[in-house]
């Protein structure tokens, strides 16, 4: 059990380091409270964006926390991919440049899994393979419109 954990931890840690570097252009890694007996403690995310000294997680900005959390999720995905990922406005704290970085990473990860991403941000919409539009006329039901779906599915 310890060996299975250690193998998973090392793989996810390795992924986290490279993904974090790409998303936030900084250095980050996973750290166990007790490396000898992992089940005796917890798992910490150590992150320091671009050239800043290591910061406590709590003092990170909204955008920095989002990128750190997403790096962890992608690190888990590269180790044990699920068939689909559904993200609801995970870009809400990100500035324009970071939305673009995230969108590029999702596009890359989408080669291995299906991504369904709810977003209001233009760089995210522009990176997607297609957009599904959702509207609700006054007092009426939700209506769904396919936008840019492949031709045979262009209308619902």
């Amino acid at each position, binding site marked *: 059990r310890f060996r299975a954990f250690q193998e998973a931890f090392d793989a996810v840690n390795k992924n986290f380091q490279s993904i974090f570097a790409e998303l936030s252009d900084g250095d980050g890694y996973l750290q166990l409270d007790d490396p000898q007996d992992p089940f005796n403690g917890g798992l910490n995310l150590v992150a320091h964006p671009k050239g800043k000294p290591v910061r406590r997680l709590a003092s990170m900005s909204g955008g920095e*926390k989002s990128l750190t959390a997403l790096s962890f999720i992608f690190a888990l995905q590269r180790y044990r991919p699920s068939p689909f990922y*559904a993200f609801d406005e995970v870009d809400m704290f990100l500035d324009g440049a970071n939305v673009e970085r995230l969108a590029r990473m999702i596009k890359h990860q*989408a080669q291995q899994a299906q991504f369904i991403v709810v977003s209001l941000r233009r760089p995210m919409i522009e990176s*997607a393979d297609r957009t599904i539009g959702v509207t609700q006329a006054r007092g009426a039901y939700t209506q769904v419109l396919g936008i840019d779906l492949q031709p045979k599915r262009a209308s619902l």
Partner: protein
Amino acid sequence: MHIKSVELSHFKSFGGTTKIPLLPRFTVVSGPNGSGKSNILDALLFALGLSGSRGMRAERLPDLVNQNHSSRRGTSEANVTVVFDIEDIPTEFLTDSDIAEDGADNGEDSGESASSEVGEDSSAEGALNGTGSAGDSPTNVVPLPSSSKEWSVTRRLRVTSQGTYTSNYYINGESCTMGQLHEQLQRFRIYPEGYNVVLQGDVTSIISMNPRERREIIDELA
């Protein structure tokens, strides 16, 4: 493997029946506030039994039935069907009950009588973590032609005018227990506590969570 379609009937802001086709790779869902984007993700959680009613922003399951629809009748019903495309799944991952070839009936019942969640309040959701997995043997594998394989999950919620409700799950049209559904989803690497669904406002929760909980995420995967 990917989700091929989500069909919502009278579910939250979806009044009639809407079938949303989905493709592999990267899809964005966008639109104005309050239009129903998050409700589509709630529909996935609902059909696959991945969340209690609170995680779908409902105090209790009956709140999930479209209000317009339920106000006009004695008993109302909400349904969601999720169809997966499983063409690329190696056959050893599948039992013959998994493989429905575009609606063909596959014979063997994939579960005993549905363990219905019957309740008048959301304490029934305590049953969320599986109610037994008798009946399905993962070694019961039959190699199948690899053309157009689908795997579908349906959940039906019926609510009476007094507010009692029943919730039933079906795999490929055959009723099953939530436990059986979860067991099969697990083989596809879809888990209730998985981090593959991130709801609105939750992205930074991984940062504020307790370190032990975070370590348990790795335990789960290992």
